[in-house]
């Protein structure tokens, strides 16, 4: 296939050529970035929490009136007894926060009590000896809390924090040599001893501020009711989720009426909490996907339209070429090569635009840098799309009869 005559012909259709190339360039720029955003969001929303989400319920309970810390402590104990007695409930514990809940406390952790010298941030989960079995956390070193270690604190600043269980990621960050167990770290002015290490537990926050320490959680054997409520995490026996979900708040109200459990989101399945937490990630991925599909369809339609027009314009020339001995295959190749030339021009410009758009998104929206592989994939997709879109009009061109050359000259 000779390229020179094709280039010569394209010079007669400068504007049409430029328009198709521009459209391909813009499509490539948008599709690459959209694909990259989709991939990022999917990676974000498929991060594991490390807890047994399918069998967990979360109850947000607020006490009516304003009971004292001691009163709340006994109310909470009564609630936990009520919950654990329910048929269908395997275990339960009271806490301040849970993975994907997007609310909680974070502390700095360091080797010294000097707060400004903290090594990393960590999420603080209030826990007791029921926490590990309830969440289904896997203890990889050390031990669980013991009943006599659990203490009632009056406020955040007076928590004892003497024994803690940390996640593997946190242990490795603090003690890269792998000897974290039994070591002391500082969350407050007093040392905290690492008595256990669990494999994995995500922090409560899914948004960007916790991205660098998403798996650095600390379980502390303290109970704190000063936020005027207690939240319960309940492990449900297999197959009982719906029954417990429907009946649990009624059971709690029957035990004690003076409380608020919001009818809207007071009781939530952890699987629903996950859906809610990642809603915008999933939505963004869906929307980018839709934009990609429609954009590629429109670009393909545009190529079909313009190529058809060119074929219509050149019927006579095609007839002459056919009469002079060109095969159908030659005509087909001519149009496919022409499209490949235009598309190549388009993807060269488009690759630059794609990187430029990505840099813009990095600057203004704190997106990450796009690996060049996305541009590579995008280039292949767009080139293939161009060839497929050209195929139908090019086939029509190849069927032009040599007789056309003799008509109406």
């Amino acid at each position, binding site marked *: 296939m000779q390229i020179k005559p094709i280039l010569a012909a394209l010079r007669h259709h400068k504007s049409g050529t430029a328009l198709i190339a521009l459209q391909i360039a*813009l499509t490539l720029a948008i599709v690459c970035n959209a694909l990259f955003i989709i991939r990022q969001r999917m990676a974000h929303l498929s991060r594991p929490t490390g807890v047994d989400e399918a069998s967990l319920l979360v109850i947000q309970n607020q006490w009516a009136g304003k009971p004292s810390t001691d009163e709340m402590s006994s109310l909470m104990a009564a609630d936990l007894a009520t919950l654990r007695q329910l048929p269908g409930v395997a275990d339960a514990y009271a806490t301040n926060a849970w993975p994907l809940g997007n609310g909680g406390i974070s502390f700095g952790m360091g080797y010294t009590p*000097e707060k400004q010298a903290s090594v990393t941030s960590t999420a603080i989960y209030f826990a007791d000896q029921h926490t590990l079995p309830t969440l289904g956390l896997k203890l990889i070193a050390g031990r669980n809390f013991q009943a006599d270690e659990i203490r009632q604190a009056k406020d955040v600043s007076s928590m004892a924090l003497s024994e803690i269980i940390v996640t593997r990621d946190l242990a490795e960050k603090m003690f890269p040599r792998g000897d974290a167990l039994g070591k002391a770290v500082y969350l407050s002015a007093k040392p905290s001893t690492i008595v256990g290490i669990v494999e994995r537990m995500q922090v409560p926050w899914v948004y960007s501020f916790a991205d660098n320490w998403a798996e650095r959680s600390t379980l502390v054997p303290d109970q704190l009711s000063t936020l005027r409520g207690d939240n319960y995490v309940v492990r449900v026996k297999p197959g009982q989720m719906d029954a417990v979900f429907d009946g649990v708040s009624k059971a709690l109200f029957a035990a004690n009426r003076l409380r608020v459990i919001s009818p809207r989101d007071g009781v939530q399945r952890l699987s629903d909490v996950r859906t809610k937490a990642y809603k915008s990630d999933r939505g963004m991925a*869906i929307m980018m996907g839709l934009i990609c599909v429609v954009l590629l369809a*429109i*670009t393909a*339609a545009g190529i079909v339209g*313009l190529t058809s*027009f060119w074929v219509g314009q050149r019927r006579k020339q095609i007839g002459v070429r056919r009469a002079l001995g060109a095969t159908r295959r030659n005509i087909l190749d001519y149009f496919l090569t022409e499209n490949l030339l235009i598309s190549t021009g388009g993807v060269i410009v488009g690759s630059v635009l794609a990187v430029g758009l990505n840099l813009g998104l990095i600057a203004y929206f704190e997106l990450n840098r796009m690996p060049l592989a996305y541009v590579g994939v995008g280039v292949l997709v767009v080139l293939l799309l161009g060839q497929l879109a050209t195929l139908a009009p090019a086939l029509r061109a190849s069927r032009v009869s040599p007789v056309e050359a003799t008509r109406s000259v």
Partner: protein
Amino acid sequence: MFAYYFELGLRSLRRNPVLTALMVMAIGFGVAASMTTYAVFRAVSGNPLPDKSGQLFVPQIDNWGPQSRKTGGDLPESLSYTDAMALMHAHKAVRQTAIYPVGFTLVPVDPSSQPFAVNGYAAYADFFAMFDVPFQYGSGWQGVDDDNRANVVVISNELNQKIFAGANSVGRGIQLDGRDYRIAGVVADWDPRPRFYDVNNGSGFGDAPDVFMPLTRAIDLQTETLGNNNCYGTTGQAPGWDGWLHSECAWISLWVELPDANAVARYQSYLEAYAADQQHAGRFHWVPNIRLSNLMQWLDREHVVPKETTVSLVLALGFLLVCLVNTIGLLLAKFMRRASEIGVRRALGASRRQIYTQFLTEAAVVGVAGGLLGLLLTAFGVLGISLVFEPEIARLARLNVSLVGFTLLVSVAATVVAAFYPTWRAARVQPAWQLKSN
């Protein structure tokens, strides 16, 4: 003449139904994607208080020092209790209010109904005048109630409906957390979007507040904040309520009203002097670092418009651009195919201007058709927004008259702009050359 061109346009569009359909669909999809994302963007990026936004300011004071920003971050977005009270007592602005979110429970008298949560804000009397809060009944409490730490509240219309069936409840009592309060006023439906006065404790698009009470009273009752409490370097914090109040934890927002540039400059220098005083007193070990942002600057700083919204608007506009390039190409093909027809018309005396009018009219017809399709798709898009965005934001985006008008306008304008180049080419057709080649 226009009617004639209109008819010619329709006839020409009917002649190539596939090409026409392609153009209409490109315009329709491009406009719909842009308009749907624009509807969301418009809903979250508006000015919630256009008349006064230039006079309302949020001061920030660096009470943590530059070391706290070593790993990124900015000045604390709230004030410590110490700083908030110092600025309130200095009274250097026309009006000022400290604010923090609070929550209570209300136990209905009827034992068969369940207790419910009543959430709102602790603030100062100036709050209501500063933010133009409309009242159904009564008014805000008075400055003297702040000083006396009075048991007064202002409740929302919704709470008033719930407890008093919408009757005028001013002067009556309400029991929150087992304590009696006198109702000073009932706010008429008031829920500015975003809730500009409290964007640092959530998205700014959550449920409307039920109650407002004097901050001085809330502090007396040791009412904890329902919002963020950010502490830095507070290892030495004394335990208990007083320890927290006197710590460097940042949890109170402050708003000041400054009517003109002079007042702003004066307040700025007051803040600098205050921070310098704190440095001399040994509380701050760094050079004073303060900031004063007006309402819109503050919303911008707090990223009230979610990143998702802007990114999707940018990509949707890019999408519209591709659709327009596509339309330019298709129109060019369509117009140039009729070169001989143009030649005949020009030879018979049509001026270039008439060719322009004819072809731009034809493009406008495509634009209207694309706009109608776009409108239909936008309606579906707005319905589907809740699949993509948070429900609090999705319910703000609506298809109203202005959006309908804007959609049609954008699509017609975009198509006509796209048609300029193909039309210019059509008008340049040489009549003689066309007639000869036929």
